[in-house]
């Protein structure tokens, strides 16, 4: 009998051990510290580690850091959630906020943030509002707060100052955007064969349709959807004209590397090698671009027929899990990374982002000998004319991705822009309708719980 009790004990022990292993991860497990999951390149990891070390020094709260590469982050976070091992503090994308809130993953941190005396007015409005959600709309100023911005990512146009000066082209005015025609003239002047071997080796620009088309469409009066994000509007003449201008740069005017050269990622490499005149610059590029052999600066994006420059602005947020054992400490980490002046200094000095605090940012922009000199352009985008990416505030991005899936023939000049856009609009509309319907159902289900 003793033996059978022993076996029963072992079996029971195995079962208990395995269930314990499944559940112990919940809320970050150990009560000794927080877990923080984020993503980024090497420079970013180092800067964040430094800021977190200081947080531990100041508060005595240990932070276990989980870093992933940018393209694995979403998958790993979702796996952590499915496995009931949600990190206490983690990055959230604007586009995922609604589903995370309605699924009860993200904690409402409105009150704690207020208690900790964070001056939200000194943070970029766009950044904070991106993480507000009132149950039906995201980005409204009255919504409850489910995160704070890790940063805001204004995407400005930049240029190789050294190259323009050598070509005798007057530098673009930081306040007065170029028109498309003026800009095209400059591009043509820059595109040349510098070593006389019969092959073009310097180009005006080299853009990626998926990341750079937005500004052209917006400044030409087009957009992806109507204002309440229910109707896909890519089949308008304004949109088509912008896409056509964009692709003509390559196929008709040939002021960019040709499609084969441009497709293989290397316009970025070519810009850094000093072969390309105009190229977009985000704050995250500064740490690399500041080390290049030539000088560069920022300018407003060239404008289409509205005459108003436009740019997109991304943002990534930091949120707290509802299952955390240490809500107070977790929120403290969020406010520390997002809004503490010392932490911001660490991150900004690493040249990976613009400051989140408005007063610090203004000082940063007017610094003597700043590189790039026109840092103000980043702040103008954040404060004045930046717009969220078209899919940032919809429930899922399938409708938006559909535009890019079959766009290659247009980029290669084999299909007119207007024809393609008319074809793709119904498919995008159907996907947007589906995602809006899902958003409603999710909100209704979340409202009950």
């Amino acid at each position: 009998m003793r033996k059978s009790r022993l076996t029963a004990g072992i079996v029971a022990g195995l079962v208990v051990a395995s269930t314990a292993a499944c559940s112990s991860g919940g809320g970050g497990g150990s009560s000794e510290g927080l877990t923080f999951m984020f993503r980024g390149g090497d420079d970013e990891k180092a800067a964040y580690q430094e800021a977190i070390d200081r947080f531990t020094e100041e508060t005595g709260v240990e932070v276990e850091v989980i870093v992933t590469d940018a393209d694995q982050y979403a998958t790993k976070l979702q796996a952590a959630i499915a496995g009931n091992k949600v990190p206490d503090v983690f990055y959230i994308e604007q586009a995922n906020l609604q589903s995370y809130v309605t699924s009860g993953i993200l904690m409402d941190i409105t009150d704690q943030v207020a208690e900790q005396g964070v001056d939200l007015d000194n943070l970029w409005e766009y950044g904070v509002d991106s993480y507000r959600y009132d149950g039906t709309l995201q980005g409204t100023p009255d919504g409850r707060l489910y995160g704070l911005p890790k940063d805001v990512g204004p995407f400005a146009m930049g240029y190789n100052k050294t190259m323009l000066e050598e070509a005798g082209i007057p530098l673009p005015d930081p306040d007065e955007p170029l028109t498309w025609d003026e800009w095209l003239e400059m591009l043509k002047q820059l595109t040349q064969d510098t070593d006389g071997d019969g092959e073009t080796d310097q180009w005006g620009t080299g853009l990626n349709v998926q990341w750079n088309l937005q500004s052209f469409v917006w400044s030409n009066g087009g957009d992806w959807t109507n204002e309440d994000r229910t109707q896909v509007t890519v089949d308008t003449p304004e949109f088509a004209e912008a896409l056509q201008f964009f692709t003509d740069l390559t196929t008709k005017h040939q002021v960019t590397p040709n499609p084969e050269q441009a497709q293989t990622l290397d316009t970025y490499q070519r810009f850094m090698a000093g072969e390309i005149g105009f190229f977009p610059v985000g704050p995250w590029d500064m740490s690399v671009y500041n080390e290049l052999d030539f000088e560069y600066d920022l300018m407003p994006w060239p404008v289409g027929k509205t005459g108003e420059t436009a740019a997109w602005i991304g943002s990534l947020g930091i949120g707290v899990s509802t299952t955390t054992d240490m809500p107070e400490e977790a929120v403290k980490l969020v406010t520390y990374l997002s809004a503490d002046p010392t932490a911001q200094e660490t991150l900004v000095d690493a040249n990976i982002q613009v400051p989140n605090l408005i007063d610090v940012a203004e000082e940063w922009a007017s610094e003597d000998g700043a590189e790039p000199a026109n840092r103000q352009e980043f702040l103008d985008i954040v404060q004045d004319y930046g717009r969220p990416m078209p899919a940032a505030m919809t429930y899922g991005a399938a409708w938006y991705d559909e535009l890019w899936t079959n766009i290659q023939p247009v980029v290669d000049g084999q299909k007119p822009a207007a024809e393609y856009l008319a074809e793709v609009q119904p498919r995008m509309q159907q996907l947007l309708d589906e995602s809006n319907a899902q958003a409603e159902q999710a909100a209704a289900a979340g409202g009950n719980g």
Partner: protein
Amino acid sequence: MTTSSATTVGSTATAGLRGSATKPPRTAPPGGGSTRLHRHEQKWALIFVAAPVIGYLAFTLYPVCFAAYASLTQWNGLGPMRFVGLQNYANLLGDEYFRISLFNTFFYMIGIPIGLALSLALAIAMNRKLYGLTAFRTIYYIPVISSLAAIAILWQWAYNGDFGLMNQALALVGIDGPNWLASTTWSKPAIIIMAVWKGLGYSMLLYLAAIQSVPRSLYEAAQLDGAGAWQRFRAITLPMVRPVTFFLVVTNIIAGAQIFTEINIMTPTGGPEYSTASAVWHIWRQAFRYQQMGYATAMAIVLGILILIITLIQFRLNRRNSFVID
């Protein structure tokens, strides 16, 4: 008593292991000792059996049942599931991208016969007495043990339209190579070439082992009867390595149906006009980018059933063609 029980320990232990086929322990000489020992060992046997059974229940059967249910729901992977019946399967029929990605997946399988033919040829070459044989065998096996992600990144560079290794090599013989991964025509062949290269070493090794175990007497007899090299290959080598071929075809098809990493790294957007997207890649994207976990699960189940059907057909075909040499 003590000595007799000591001698029976060994025999009952082996009897217990062999199961009821040998002498049942009940007919063992009377005496409580052996029976208790038998019970004791039976318990341990049960515990050992329990480990894989529990593993199967927890990690295979439960997930499969869960997936079957999840495929009938609308679920974003985070929140509650909403039962929608067969809606996901109905949507699937109208999903053009799922059809394209399935087509791509099966298109990639063109690489399987090519790979098998090449690796058999290599195995025959490696079976001869060559100078530096071990070095060659190692070289061909290196891709197998290398990280797939690293290899995919290397090949992405090799396929670069501008200064990729592939087009530089083609330029040497006067061919102006395409921009492999950005062309709807060449993106799939590009993936196939890479997959064949990656799998070559493994298939070669198995073929090599199979060839070396073919009885020499068969070749000698054939030679006496005047069979040439080609005839010996056709009539002896090929049929003798058939079990290996069968094994490789089945495993390659199953693995090929789940091709993902290469696609995701080499063409992160699914290639121009979805021309490289595989079924698993499409499923992954629906599940993790668009948070349509329920729909993605439905597609995964369809894919699983397709693989099962294909494998069953192969087993049937193989049974019809199999033969035995005594």
